[in-house]
C-alpha cells in the first residue's frame, strides 16, 4: 500500500514472533469515535489491540483490567476523553483517580509499567489512536508475553503429584473434587 518506509529497524523475525494482545477499553464519545475516525481516515496501525466499548471511561472497573490480564492480555489500554472534555462532565477524573491507585497496585504485584496505559484521546484525534496503539504495541512487545493463564497453570503444577497420589486409590465412580 504505502511506500513510506517503516521506522523500525529491520530485524530477522524469530520463528514464532510474539504478538502482544492488548485489550482496550474505549469510551464511546471520544476514544471510540477517534478510533472510528482513524478508520475513516484509513490510518494504518498495529493490529494488536481489541477494543471493548464502554459509554464512559468511568464505567471501567479496575476489576476489568485485572481480569483482562488474568485472561491473557499482555497489555491493557484505557482511553477516555481529555480532562474537562468528558461527555458526562467528570467521569474521566474519577477514572484517573482510581487508576492512579490501580497503577500502584499493579506495580506492587509485579506487572511492568508499560502494560497498563491510560490515555486521553478526543474524538478528533484519530492520529493519536494510531500513535498510542503503535507505541504501546512496541512497548509491550519489548516487555514480552505476560501470559497469566500460562503462569497460573505453571504455578498449580506443583500440586499435580499430590493430587494424583491422594486420589490414586479413590473409587473410580466418584466425581473428582479437585479443581
Amino acid at each position, binding site marked *: 500500500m504505502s511506500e513510506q518506509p517503516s521506522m523500525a529497524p529491520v530485524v530477522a523475525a524469530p520463528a514464532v514472533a510474539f504478538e502482544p494482545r492488548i485489550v482496550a477499553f474505549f469510551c464511546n464519545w471520544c476514544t471510540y469515535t477517534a478510533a472510528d475516525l482513524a478508520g475513516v481516515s484509513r490510518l494504518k496501525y498495529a493490529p494488536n489491540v481489541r477494543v471493548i466499548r464502554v459509554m464512559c471511561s468511568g464505567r471501567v*472497573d479496575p476489576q476489568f483490567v*485485572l*481480569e483482562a*490480564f488474568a485472561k491473557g492480555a499482555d497489555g491493557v489500554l484505557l482511553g477516555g476523553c481529555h480532562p474537562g472534555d468528558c461527555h458526562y462532565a467528570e467521569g474521566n477524573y474519577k477514572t484517573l*483517580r482510581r487508576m492512579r491507585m490501580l497503577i500502584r497496585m499493579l506495580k506492587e*504485584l509485579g506487572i511492568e509499567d508499560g502494560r497498563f496505559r491510560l490515555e486521553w484521546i478526543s474524538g478528533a484525534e484519530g492520529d493519536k489512536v494510531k500513535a498510542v496503539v503503535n507505541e504501546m504495541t512496541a512497548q509491550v512487545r519489548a516487555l514480552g508475553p505476560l501470559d497469566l493463564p500460562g503462569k497460573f497453570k505453571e504455578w498449580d503444577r506443583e*500440586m499435580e503429584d499430590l493430587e494424583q497420589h491422594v486420589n490414586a486409590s479413590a*473409587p473410580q465412580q466418584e466425581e473428582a473434587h479437585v*479443581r
Partner: protein
Amino acid sequence: MSAKPQVAFYWCASCGGCEEAVVDLAEDILKVVEAVDIVLWPVAMDFKKADIEARPDKSITVAFINGAVRTSEQEEWARLLRRKSQVVVSFGACANMGGIPALANQFRREDLLKYIYEDGPGVDNPAKTRPQASSQDEGRTLSLPELRNVVRSLDQVIDVEFYLPGCPPTPKLIMAAVQALLSGQLPPKGTVLSPDHALCEECARKDSKPVDLALAAFKRPHQIQIDPEKCLLAQGLVCMGPATRAGCEAVCPAGNMPCTGCFGPSSRVKDQGAKFISSVFSNIVPKEAKEIDAVLDGVPDPIGTFYRYGLSKCILRRKLN
C-alpha cells in the same frame, strides 16, 4: 458407626484463631458436641492420619477446614478430607481467601527462605542449612512438608461446598451454619454463610457518613484521635466496610477500628481490593495526577491494605516474578 453426623475439624496455615472461635461457642458447644461425633480435631483430640485414611470415602458428614494452604502436608490433608467428606466448609478468612498467610504471595519463596534461614536478624546458620523435604539421618529418611510457591485458598486446592467468613467467623455465624447443616436445609453450593450485602448496613456509624466523602488525605489509625461516633472513612481512615460482606455486626468499627475486610467481598464482586479502589478513590478531591498521587501516598501499603485477607483471591493471585 454412630448415627450422629460425623464432623471433622482441620487447620492448615492459620493462627489458631478459628479453633478458638469454635471454643467461643461457649455453652453452645456442648449442644454441638452432643449432636455430632467429632472424628478429627487435631487441636483438641488425638487422631492420626491413618485413622482418616482408613475410613470409607464420604463417611464424614462435614469437614470444617480453616487456614490457607501453603505446604504439601496441608494440601494432602485437604485432599484427603475432601475425599472422605460429604460437605466441606471453608472456615474463616484464611481458608476462604488466603488470609494473612497469603500476604506472602508478595514474595518469592526463595527470598522468604533466604531471609528466614540466612539473612534475618538473629539467624545464626553459617552452614546455611535449610529444611529439606527429604533428608537422611542415621540411616533413616526424614521427610518434611514442602513449602509451596503459592499460598492458596482452600478452594484453589479442593472443591468446597460452603464458606464461613471472618477472621475468625463469629460464634453466631458458626452456630447458624451448624444448625443449617444439622437440619439439612442447605443453601446452594458455593454460598458464603453470611448476609450478602456490605458491612455498612450493620455499622452504627453509617448515618454519620457524609454523602460526599471528598477525601483530601488518608490517615492510619495511630495518626489520629479517632472519633468514636463518626464514619471512619469520613475521618480519612481506610475502612473496607463498603466493600466487605456483612455478618460480623461491625465489631471492629464498634471497637473504634476500621474494617480491614476479613469477610471478603459480596457475591457480586470478584476482587475485593480492586472494587474498593474503584469506589473510594473515585471520590477523592484532586483532579491532577500529581495531586492525586500525593493523596494516595497516605496509603503506603496498598496490597497489605486492600488485600489484607484476600491476596490469594486477587484476580492476579500473587506477585509475578
